[in-house]
């Protein structure tokens, strides 16, 4: 890249302590002067900034110092003074497609040399967003990466890279500082230096095992050699409120609906009288609240000639929207690298976090949804009111609960200590060889405590004895990676890197849990006093259980990166992986990949086209494996069944219990690797001196032999556990585009970037234990099936009757195919097979949960000391099943939207049914419950003010910036729920909203200080 420094003849001045440097800074493209460029003497706080005409003058301590030129939107420049007194500088607009190093699997590569689709983002962008976890910060920024948030404090969003490729688990692989880890809960956004997302197979293949759903590579912050000691403090305080509240019916509206129901079923003599039910409780208001959240991070970095370090500590307090629901985390980071000798380096990376949270009561939001508005939280005497009997009214739903009491009697704590640490030694020998051996540990120690005191609210909401459950789990991943790299360049034309490696990973999990009933009453309920053996009443009993698993993965890998003059690029990898999750005969998988690239703009014939700064085409093909399945599926195992007491002591409580053991699952001795074959063709471009940059990728990603558990025919007796096997082929095909524009106009620098991804998801083959498709539903609430995955359709497509209107009168019913017992106001279902009757064979596809289009949009500008950034994102075209409604509409409660739009007499609605919904079971899945899941969101708006360098220098600070941030200030959607983001780890049940946590808007003020 043309980084041009114009040199003036050096002056000979003996006074080394007072050396003056002057010069002008101009844009390398437009040749216009750049005002406000920060200039600092490296390793000091001495600095200045250019004036309106781009001139600067600086008095430096020594003539051999180095100057750093920084300007937002431009490449940073490092210019040694070398005794000069005039240094004019041409700065180039920050170039995304240039020499920048991108973290790839087991190494780094210049972006220009990449042949695969890798999206990367720097830590500074992640840190510009006030979200508690790093993954949420990526939302909307990267094409091909769909991130769905979960509002629960401390939870991680769900991530899909290039669509849903696996049925059991579509989560990507996380690699932190070279180590494969299962999750990245413990990372704070402030720990991160950069994130690379390996999207296509030719990039991911080097991670063979489990790379089938993409790889997210995270590098934590490192120190720099010879760097000055620098302390950075980032902190923000924010206030969060629910971004949308769902309005439920009030008491008079509820009574109207209830009486309509009675009327339609011929029982109007039991009508409720509104005069008897004057209480009006807004239950969501009752359980939700605004809350404060804050985050502080301190980092210290520095380096000598032979070592560098970056250590940090951060603290996050994230209060949930549900009362008393919170998450707090204290994290540490220690990264230290040093030279043992000229050829031997060593170092360690450590990130660990201690977190504690108070989870909300299980299903609180569902119970709040179903709570009847005329139930008051408390009786006049201060006790909690009984939801199963209100002023003599017995609600039809015998299982309702008083949400206020749920909150009051909820005492839960989750504590977790987790992190990753690795230690490496790297030996450089024979000049071109480099051998690196890394030992890594990734432990998670978790403890959960749940105490429920003795209480009674109603028959369905009570606990007869003080009960304590405690669980601990120890998970440990140990890995050992050995990588040998040979790098050489012949005549600066043939550049190649050859890598060979061996990797070994063991994953063990172990849990122990116990519960005690009949503990004595406690004066204070505090987790430090809660022990299973604490004060026993005569009713005391205790139970314990434990379990665990072990998995071993071994891999051998090799890679050749070759390029001719950085113009013709070739990348070949091969990986062989063994995983103990597969039977011995199918244990090894072989995953090759190849990628080629051509930097057209580097050709001679392109040199005369000044408009084009970069033009590169890439193509790659690769094969990836997935062993992310439960262990031991190929082995027959037994488990405990219902034990029985025979004999005369059957009912005394003291009879001998005969244990029962059964085989609960079918094992599959032929289980084999799930393999993804992916082809990617991409184009990178830069125009107008790289002011306009972008890339375009097309991919074709075929998952073969996807592993999941299917429902076998009931007659095989294997209903509940399913039968595991390689059953389906899934094709994800799509186009991703990213386009950015950056420019500087006078003091105004701005950038705009847009990204969009079209993805189509289709099952191309399915054969699950004899069945031609795979159904999944909500077994807990007996709503099955909700989705049907079949050939030609997307994974987890919604399935049910198609509602095409509402019966207005009896005559219409008589003339239209209908379910038995249909009455006016019921939904009209389409007679899909045209046989003149409505039955199960008329159920059809009623919506795709996978968004065909996702997009993001970012606008940033800075003017002098002010900077401003807006990030928007959205999804388009997906559907959501409003299961909350399905559950409520049986007998429980209604949202206001339904009340306002429902059918309540001929001609009142042809889209919303009456309160009865349909003949038969109102829970029957149908398209009335399927809603548009599209949304558009302003994800964040940030306004910052950077105190000018000259003031900051006087304060002895390096940088000082204040900002105000609004996170999720606006989300626009049609869906009748809290949030259109419905995350699920089960791809077959995605987009099904059952008690999803509300999303919040966070308004915060923050500060960044460096000194």
């Amino acid at each position, binding site marked *: 890249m043309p980084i041009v420094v114009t040199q003036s003849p050096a002056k000979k001045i003996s006074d080394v302590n007072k050396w003056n440097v002057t010069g002008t800074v101009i844009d390398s493209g437009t040749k216009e002067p750049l005002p406000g460029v920060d200039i600092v003497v490296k390793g000091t706080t001495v600095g200045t900034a250019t004036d309106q005409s781009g001139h600067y003058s600086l008095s430096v301590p020594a003539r051999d110092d180095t100057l750093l030129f920084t300007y937002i939107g431009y490449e940073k420049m490092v210019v040694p003074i070398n005794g000069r007194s005039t240094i004019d500088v041409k700065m180039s607009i920050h170039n995304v497609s240039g020499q920048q190093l991108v973290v790839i699997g087991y190494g780094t590569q210049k972006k220009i040399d990449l042949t695969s689709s890798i999206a990367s983002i720097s830590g500074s962008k992640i840190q510009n967003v006030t979200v508690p976890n790093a993954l949420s910060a990526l939302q909307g920024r990267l094409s091909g990466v769909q991130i769905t948030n979960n509002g629960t404090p401390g939870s991680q969003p769900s991530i899909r890279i290039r669509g849903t490729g696996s049925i059991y688990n579509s989560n990507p692989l996380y690699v932190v500082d070279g180590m494969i880890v299962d999750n990245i809960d413990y990372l704070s956004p402030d720990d991160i230096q950069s994130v690379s997302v390996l999207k296509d197979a030719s990039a991911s293949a080097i991670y063979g095992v489990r790379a089938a759903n993409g790889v997210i590579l995270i590098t934590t912050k490192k120190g720099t050699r010879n760097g000055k000691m620098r302390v950075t403090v980032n902190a923000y305080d924010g206030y969060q409120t629910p971004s949308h509240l769902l309005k439920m019916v009030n008491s008079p509206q509820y009574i109207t609906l209830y009486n309509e*129901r009675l009327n339609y079923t011929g029982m109007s003599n039991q009508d409720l009288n509104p005069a008897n039910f004057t209480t009006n409780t807004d239950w969501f208001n009752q359980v939700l609240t605004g809350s404060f959240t804050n985050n502080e991070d301190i980092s210290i970095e520095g380096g000598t000639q032979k070592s560098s370090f970056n250590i940090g500590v951060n603290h996050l307090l994230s209060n949930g929207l549900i009362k008393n629901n919170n998450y707090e985390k204290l994290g540490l980071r220690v990264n230290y690298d040093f030279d043992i000798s000229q050829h031997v380096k060593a170092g360690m990376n450590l990130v660990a976090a201690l977190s504690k949270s108070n989870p909300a009561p299980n299903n609180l939001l569902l119970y709040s949804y179903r709570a009847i508005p005329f139930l008051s939280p408390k009786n006049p005497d201060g006790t909690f009111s009984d939801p199963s009997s209100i002023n003599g009214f017995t609600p*039809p739903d*015998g299982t309702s609960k008083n949400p206020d009491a749920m909150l009051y009697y909820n005492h839960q704590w989750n504590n977790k200590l987790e992190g990753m640490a690795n230690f490496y030694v790297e*030996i450089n*020998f024979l*000049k*071109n060889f480099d*051998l690196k*051996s890394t030992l890594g540990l990734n432990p998670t120690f978790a403890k959960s405590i749940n105490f429920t005191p003795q209480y009674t609210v109603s*028959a369905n909401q*009570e606990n*007869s*004895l003080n009960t304590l459950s405690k669980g601990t789990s120890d998970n440990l991943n140990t890995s*050992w990676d050995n990588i040998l790299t040979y790098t050489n360049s012949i005549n600066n034309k043939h550049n190649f890197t050859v890598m060979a490696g061996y990797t070994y990973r*063991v994953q063990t999990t172990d849990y122990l849990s116990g519960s005690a009933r009949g503990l004595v009453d406690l004066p204070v309920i505090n987790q430090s006093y809660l022990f299973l053996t604490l004060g026993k009443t005569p*009713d005391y009993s205790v139970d314990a259980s434990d379990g665990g*698993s072990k998995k071993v993965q071994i891999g051998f890998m090799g890679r050749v990166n070759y390029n001719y003059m950085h113009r013709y690029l070739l990348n070949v990898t091969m990986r062989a992986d063994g995983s*103990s999750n597969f039977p011995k005969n199918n244990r090894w998988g072989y995953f090759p990949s190849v990628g080629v690239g051509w930097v057209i703009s580097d050709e001679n014939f392109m040199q005369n086209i000044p408009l084009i700064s970069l033009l590169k085409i890439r193509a790659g093909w690769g094969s990836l494996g997935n062993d992310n399945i439960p262990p*031991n599926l190929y*082995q*027959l*195992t*037994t488990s405990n*069944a*219902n*034990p*029985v*007491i*025979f*004999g*005369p002591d*059957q*009912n005394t409580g003291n*009879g001998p219990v005969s*244990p*029962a*053991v059964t085989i609960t699952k*079918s094992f599959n001795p032929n289980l084999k690797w799930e393999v993804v074959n992916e082809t990617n063709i991409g184009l990178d471009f830069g125009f107008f001196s790289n002011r306009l940059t972008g890339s375009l990728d097309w991919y074709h990603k075929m998952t073969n032999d996807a592993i999941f558990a299917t429902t*076998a025919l*009931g*007659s*095989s*007796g*294997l*209903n*509940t556990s399913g*039968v595991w096997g390689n059953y389906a082929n899934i094709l994800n095909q799509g186009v991703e585009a990213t386009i950015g524009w950056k420019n500087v106009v006078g003091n105004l620098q701005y950038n705009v970037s847009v990204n969009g991804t079209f993805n189509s998801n289709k099952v191309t083959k399915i054969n699950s*234990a*004899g*069945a*031609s498709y795979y159904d999944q539903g909500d077994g807990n609430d*007996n709503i*099955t099936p909700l989705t049907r995955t079949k050939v030609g359709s997307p994974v987890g497509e919604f399935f049910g009757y198609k509602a095409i209107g509402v019966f207005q009168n009896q005559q219409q019913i008589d003339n239209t195919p209908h379910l*038995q017992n249909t009455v006016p106001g019921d939904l009209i279902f389409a007679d899909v097979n045209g046989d003149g009757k409505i*039955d*199960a064979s008329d159920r059809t596809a009623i919506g795709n949960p996978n968004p065909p289009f996702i997009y993001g949009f970012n606008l940033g500008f800075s003017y002098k000391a002010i900077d401003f950034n807006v990030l928007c994102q959205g999804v388009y075209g997906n559907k959501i099943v409003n299961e909350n409604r399905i559950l409520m509409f049986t*007998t429980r409660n209604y949202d206001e939207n339904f009340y306002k739009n429902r059918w309540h007499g001929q001609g009142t609605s042809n889209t919303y049914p009456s309160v009865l919904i349909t003949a*038969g*079971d*109102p829970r029957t899945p149908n398209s009335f419950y399927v809603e548009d899941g599209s949304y558009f969101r302003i994800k964040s708006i940030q306004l910052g003010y950077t105190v000018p360098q000259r003031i900051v220098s006087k304060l002895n600070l390096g940088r000082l910036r204040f900002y105000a941030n609004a996170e999720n200030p606006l989300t626009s959607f049609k869906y009748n729920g809290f949030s259109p983001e419905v995350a699920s780890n089960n791809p077959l049940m995605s987009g099904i909203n059952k008690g999803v946590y509300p999303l919040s808007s966070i308004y915060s003020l923050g500060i960044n200080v460096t000194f």
Partner: protein
Amino acid sequence: MLHFKNRIDMKRAYKIAALIFLICTVSVSCTKDLNFGDYNKLPQAKFWQTKDDAMAALVACYGDLSGWSFVDPSTLGPEQMASDNTAKGSTVGSQSDLLAFQDFSFTPSLSRFNNLWISRYSLINKCNQVLKYVPGMNIDQTDKNEILGEARFIRAWEYFELVRLFGPVVVYDGIPANGAYDIPKSSVADVYKFILSDLDFGWKNMRKQPWGPQWKGRVTAWAARALEAKVLMYMASGPNFMQDGKAIDGKTWNDVEQVTNDVIQNGPYHLMTARGDSSFFYLFRLQYENCDESIFEVQNGSSTTVSAVNRSPYVLNTWIKAGRDGGFGYSVPSDNLVAAWKKRYQDQHDLRYKYSVIFKGDTLVDGLVVDGASSLEGITGTPRYNYKVYIPKNEQTNIKGGGWIHMVEQNERLYRYSDLLLIDAEAKFRLGDKAGAAVSINKVRVRAGEPPLAPSDLTLQKIWDERRFELAFENDRYFDLIRTGQAKTVLGPRGWTFPKNVFYPIPQNQIDLSNGKLTQNPNW
């Protein structure tokens, strides 16, 4: 190549060599690590070894009988609410899909059928596991025969239930392996023959003498013999309900009587009459579980040490729809049953009425006043419930927990000797032996407080009615209405049609899943 000219420091070379050597040796040893087996569960190879293992697999079969789907509305709907004995119950709008059993408006996609189907085959699979693995085990032959016989009995019990519910069903004999998940349906006759072969094995291989105290509740050869009688009765009744108008596999009432005679003359069963006029009441209380009258019942109990021991969700599902100590109040005595029974109580002093049905406001034997919901769906008038499931408060074990689970120890009575006596009465009546028939039916009548019938007064209808009241709420009535051909008149007005409703539809889920292998019953 420049680097070859570099002089390598020998010390460094040693270090490198040492590191490479270390990596190689450890790598080789790590590769062996791939060969480990199961980590936390008992592998198959170590399971089917001892008699305890075989027993544990058999106990799983017994234990499954109180699984939720065996006693929740999935069973109560098709086997009770569809009859004229009970109605849906519970409050308006609660599980309203069950109303379909009142007017026979259900379709094959009603999820209840699927639950029913799946749970029965899941239990059959547990029996099949025993039958597959136990024969090859090196254990005492007597124990082995006993265990195999019991597994066959329970399997026969389940196929008898399935064939009466769904008609031609899948006979799955063996365990699924290597893709053998989808076996087609067998004909009704073949299912019945399969049941008889299981019972025959049980009769020949199980013990005849009752179990001692330790194993009270396990079935014996006589249970298999007694069940054979009931199965044969259905086969002989084929002309009343089979579309071809013929007895199934040519079985006759002679075949039935031969077995009932054997059981009555040589078997160990007696009616429980120890409590005089109150005998029928006490028969359903805890102290008379597994008494001499019991042929087969679900073994529920309570334990102060093991929390997951078998409990009866049957009580929860049917007991008083109320708050504390209440149940869900499903499958409550219908208007028709109550009216007929009340009259019978007044006319014939049928005490069973008092011992089987309780009304809101009644004071029970332990002083509990029945309270709860003020109205129940599907019936008119005072809410009422099945009294047979109740455990008086003073008999409830103080197990840990509150609410309904106080009453979970109740054993659901599946097959009683009085049923066999009525089978005998019907067989003898049909064979012209009115006197013999009267002897059997009168044993049942007298215990219930009713006057004995003279042989000349005996009619088939009276035997059937006796069955209705004696076995009310014991999952017999609906099947009996079909078997006897009464369904057309009794259930016809509510929507039951012949031949469509003789069998329930195969669950739509299963048809869908089967990829064409399973076919729907005719007319559905």
